[in-house]
């Protein structure tokens, strides 16, 4: 396991930010942490990257206790968080040169990743003149420059436009294909569903569900509903009672069904069902 948390809790005064969470992230896996703002996602990243002490519990990054992470571990991980900054007076390219030299990365890789995050045409621009989204992309390029074994991404696509988000998602999948494991926090259900092999739903510091997006949704698919469109253009929804099944079968036998879909709950539905709150609260 590249990342392992065992019963990690963190309290800030009387507030419990994390409440005994446990999970693991394996090699080449994208693990998502899905929860609304204030649910403890960033606190988790800070603890596992050795930037915050847990009140109790232990976490291991690449086999090392997070609280004793040394340079060797930092050389093998990448971090994108709201605590990451850029050198505003340096241009985009020079921002990456600094970290390429620190991490002994060939400089030709800088151009490659600048192109990947859509900043190739801005390489000579001072980083201070970039928009928030562009800075976020620069930080991302910096975090992946050394092809880390494990990448920590704290809301990496927050505030980015849809086209860039799609390109960044492709990049994550490419990194995964190259063997990088990703720990991704997000409050974006679609992002989590699309990218994550497994994920945990987090609410007020507690993991309320864990598994693959499909497993989680199916686990809560208790009503087994179907939505169909008839050949006449009517949109109908069916539940799983005997009467409704009969109606559905009759329509199917009469070839009056144009399309039919099962209505499993989304991750958002699961979250709302379990917590009574929305992911975007």
């Amino acid at each position, binding site marked *: 396991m590249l990342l392992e948390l065992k019963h990690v809790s963190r309290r800030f005064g009387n507030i419990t930010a994390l409440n005994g969470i446990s999970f693991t992230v394996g090699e080449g896996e994208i693990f998502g942490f899905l929860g609304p703002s204030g649910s403890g996602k960033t606190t988790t990243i*800070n603890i596992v990257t*050795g930037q915050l002490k847990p009140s109790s519990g232990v976490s291991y990054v690449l086999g090392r206790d997070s609280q004793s992470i040394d340079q060797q571990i930092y050389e093998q991980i990448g971090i994108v968080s709201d605590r990451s900054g850029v*050198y505003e007076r340096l241009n985009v390219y020079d921002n990456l040169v600094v970290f390429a030299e620190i991490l002994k990365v060939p400089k030709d890789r800088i151009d490659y990743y600048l192109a990947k995050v859509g900043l190739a045409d801005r390489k000579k621009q001072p980083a201070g003149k970039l928009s928030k989204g562009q800075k976020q992309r620069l930080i991302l390029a*910096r975090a992946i420059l050394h092809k880390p074994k494990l990448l920590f991404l704290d809301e990496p696509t927050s505030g980015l436009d849809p086209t860039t988000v799609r390109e960044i998602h492709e990049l994550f999948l490419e990194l995964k294909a190259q063997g990088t494991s990703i720990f991704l926090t997000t409050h974006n259900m679609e992002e989590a569903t699309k990218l994550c092999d497994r994920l945990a739903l987090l609410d007020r510091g507690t993991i309320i569900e864990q598994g693959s997006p499909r497993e989680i949704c199916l686990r809560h698919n208790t009503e087994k509903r179907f939505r169909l469109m008839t050949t006449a253009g009517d949109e109908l929804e069916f539940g799983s009672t005997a009467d409704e099944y009969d109606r559905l079968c009759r329509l199917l036998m009469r070839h009056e069904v144009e399309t039919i879909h099962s209505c499993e709950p989304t991750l958002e539905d699961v979250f709302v069902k379990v917590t009574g709150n929305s992911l975007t609260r």
Partner: protein
Amino acid sequence: MKSHFWRKTLAVIKLKAKMLLGNTAALTGPLMSIAATVLLKILYAGMLEGDNSAILTYVLNFGISFNLGLGAVMMSALPLAEDKEKHTLRSLMTSSVNGLQFFIGSIFWPFVITVGVNYIVIFVSGVDSSRINMVMFSLLTVVSSLISGKLGLLLGIYAKSQVNANNLMMPFVMVLSLVPTLSTLNETLGRISNYLYTGIVTTMLNRYSEGLEFRLEISQVLVLALCVVGISVLFVVKYRKILVSE
């Protein structure tokens, strides 16, 4: 392992060179030390008749105290405070740069510039350099430049922003620059000055101006050693604390 250490340290040195060149506020200190020395020499020009060594030594002393107490501290404190303010310090920390590498990388340019300015100030002050034992002068100003750079880093790492760094610096600048400069005018200031590393430099310059020899006393060596070691320890401890919040 060694090559890793120096590769990262060199990367930080290169980074700091680029950042310092763009930080006019930080460069103001050493430039002001030279300018103030020239200005003071011009102001005292009318009094420079006969044996003027005492006045020229005062001018030199002023320039060096200013450089050590203000220039060096500013050059190291402000860029580091900026690093904290813009979260780039944390980015470096989490990209495998350790406290010592950051420390050496950050102090390098302020140290080199401060040492250089100390020699420039001798030249622009007009002091007869043959009166100065250059070996002792070099030894003491190099060590003092190192201490000032370290002190700046310590203040910078405690500051929350550049503005806050300026506020934190002020009392230190006042004490380190003014107490030695005014030490000959007031007995109490003279006594305090003996326990300041900038004061030891002043004592040395005053001895040379009177045509006397200067030797470091045990108490002065202790003051210098305490500053060198104490500030380094405090810095490395604070560096680690910044990375890991309690």
